[in-house]
């Protein structure tokens, strides 16, 4: 029952954040110089007064601010994020076309990063001060300092240009028209480089965090108790140390999400991966404000939902968590 209330309260919180994001977007759009009509007119090639007036009336740009705000909010609530200037398509449509690609890439990166990061961190924690531990620490420091887009390009240089093992960009081989399993394999091959680029950075972080969390957990009194009970080292490590070390890792995973999305924007650009990232880049270039803001809203909502999931997982993992 308490858990249900907790989930509900988190949902409400996610909802509030979404509303705040939408409000922020609305005001951000005012920042852009010249209103939408100027931009559209510029693109259309017409500039005369009558046309602009007509555009403004059509888009409701001549109405007072609160009215526009209300119009925007109610539109968003219905799922209408506006119309892309450049593509003359509904923003939401455009986004939904590209969304699965981004999700695929991000999910791959997250799984690889968490899986290998935690495993490496646990290994390093087992023997603090050893050569392996130092190597993990050094590697994570290096990756922390490396710009992701540059890392991606380096990987392309090595694996595509010099070694020619993996394709350098896109999601599938153009013109090859694979279907079924062959298509999956093709996509997977294209996903490795961008996915690893994204994953390596977070892998380093997870390894470092796991190591610290495990070492701290291992120093706690209850581990001494577990040993005093006569449990084997393996049982102690799994049931007591790792189980408690997981808790801070789960909350970290939640924070990860927003950084991951940001990172994938850049990485997608490097690899011309047809996801939201490249879409955002194109929108910036084309001064396509509704599209850009639509991407902002959608990515924020996604991160919110992911945070909700990690919050729930956290409350399950840690019975001490305040379920308020």
């Amino acid at each position, binding site marked *: 029952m308490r858990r249900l209330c907790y989930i509900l309260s988190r949902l409400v919180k996610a909802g509030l954040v979404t509303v705040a994001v939408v409000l922020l977007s609305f005001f951000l759009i005012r920042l852009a110089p010249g209103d939408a009509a100027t931009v559209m007119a510029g693109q259309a090639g017409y500039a005369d007064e009558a046309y602009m007036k007509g555009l403004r009336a059509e888009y409701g740009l001549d109405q007072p601010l609160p009215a526009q705000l209300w119009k925007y909010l109610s539109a968003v609530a219905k799922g209408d994020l506006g119309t892309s200037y450049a593509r003359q398509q509904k923003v939401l449509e455009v986004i939904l076309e590209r969304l699965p690609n981004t999700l695929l890439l991000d999910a791959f990166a997250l799984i690889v990063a968490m899986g290998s990061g935690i495993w490496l961190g646990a290994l390093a924690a087992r023997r603090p001060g050893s050569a392996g531990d130092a190597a993990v620490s050094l590697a994570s420091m290096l990756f922390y300092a490396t710009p992701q887009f540059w890392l991606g390009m380096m990987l392309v240089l090595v694996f595509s240009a010099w070694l020619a093992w993996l394709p350098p960009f896109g999601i599938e081989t153009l013109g090859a028209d694979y279907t079924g399993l062959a298509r999956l394999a093709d996509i997977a091959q294209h996903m490795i480089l961008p996915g690893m680029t994204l994953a390596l950075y977070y892998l380093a972080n997870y390894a470092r965090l796991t190591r610290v969390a495990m070492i701290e957990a291992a120093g*706690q*009194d*209850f581990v*001494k*108790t*577990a*040993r*005093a*009970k*006569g*449990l*084997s080292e393996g*049982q102690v490590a799994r*049931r*007591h140390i790792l*189980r*408690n070390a997981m*808790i801070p890792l789960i909350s970290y995973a939640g924070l990860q999400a927003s950084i991951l999305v940001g990172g994938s924007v850049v990485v997608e650009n490097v690899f011309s991966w047809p996801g939201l990232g490249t879409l955002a880049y194109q929108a910036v270039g084309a001064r396509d404000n509704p599209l850009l803001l639509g991407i902002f809203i959608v990515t924020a909502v996604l991160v919110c939902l992911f945070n909700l999931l990690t919050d729930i997982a956290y409350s399950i*993992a*840690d*019975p*001490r968590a*305040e379920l*308020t």
Partner: protein
Amino acid sequence: MLAIRNLTLTLPPGADRALAVEGVDLEVGANEIVCIVGESGSGKSLTAHAVIGLLPRGVAASAGKILFDGEDLLKLPPAQMRRRRGREIAMIFQDPMAALNPVMPVGRQIAEQILAHEPVPAAQARRRAVELLEQMGLVDAANLARAYPHQLSGGQRQRVMIAMALSLGPRLLIADEPTTALDVTTQAQILRLIRLLQAQRRMSVLFITHDIGLVADLADRVVVMCQGKVVEQGAARVLLEAPSHPYTRELIAAIPRGEAAPLPPPDGAPLPPPDGAPLMQASGLSKRYRRAGFFSRRGETALDNVELVLNRGETLGIVGESGSGKSTLARCIVRLLDPDQGQIIFDGQNLRGLRGGALRAARRRIQMVFQDPYSSLNPRHRIGHILTAGACAHGEDAQEARRRAAEMIQLVGLPPEAMLRFPHEFSGGQRQRIALARALMLKPDLLIADEPLSALDLTVQAQMLKLLDDVRRRMNLAMLFITHDMRVAAQICHRVMVMRRGQVVETGPTRALFEAPREDYTKALLAAIPGRGAQKP
């Protein structure tokens, strides 16, 4: 059954000495309770850890033997030692909150131990766990077994630990300060439980403690340790009545007792006659804490209609366990917290209504010494600054303040050079003296001491108590002395006020309260004083 011969443990480089423990010889026979007594740094805890084979990283046994039934535990391969742990030798630790896995229900933790050594089905292990909890005196054991450690009280957690340790019927129980983190009344209950279980199961107990007062109630034999060496050991009664080593004598003398205190009892000295109005009078003080968050209906009552009267030159002791509200009361008096209701009349002025300049002037006359010497001095300031900051803030000339500070620091027994040093260069006891000097710099009329001794070693406590008493007489201060330890209150207070859960239970002159307590709670507190059972009036 257990014989430690010439045990020497080395510490890792960088520790304050090379050997944690040197040449320790002691024995524990079957069906007997042996207490190891010593202050912090005596090596008593590490000795215990060596027996069960759980020495921390960096500490190793460089010499000696630990013979359990004739077999040297130090030479056993790890797998065999593991088999002994939990089954034949069990250990309970000091802080049951930290010693239990926070994410596993307590019943499962007990069952885990059973399953680690005996191939029984899980359901049976769980049932045994519930039975054990019942044997420990816990009610509603079946539900309790499903609870998590943070949902239980300190006493309940320690009973869980004991249940876990005894689940496989060990022949030796090692208890490392198991009651230090508990309330006085809970402490008494746990000690009774351990005595009972020991008698029932005829098991041997190796009990580690810093409080030699406990020993009288509990031990058959006593081992006294100091700085890593055993200074004296023998039968408990003999050792307590006729200690031969000077350190043992010092330890025994340092115990604050319920009567026959080394300091002249305050009742002996003539109290200054109350000249008209008391110095401070508080009435109707109430405070409730609201739990953070929107959806909390419950609040905690910290203070409930508390009344207090204090005369000039008098020491009033406020005694209570954790949660009794004594600290909250102190903070309300000095307006560090604001009570919801009630008034505090100090020398004719109502402290509650004051603001700004008037509040500062009034504050000057009431000063406080806090509990934690490691937290009450700003680590970034030199002692000289710490002492003079307050005086200067009240407009005193800096030169004059420094001169007075030098006097004050000598009054509390530290050299004037101390003014140039930083807090971390001093020990806990020295820091408390500095805190006292700081409080006295503003020439207060009332000094509030909020558990000033709790963080200090026993011998240092005695010195600090003497200093407080001296200072009080010299400067004719009124003092409010807050403590959870009745023995300490008896030594220094003219009158004592007992508090429980925010309410005043009983108030009266010290001697009268101790000899003829009226309320049940007061009686329980007095009965729980360790060592009182063995002392005959």
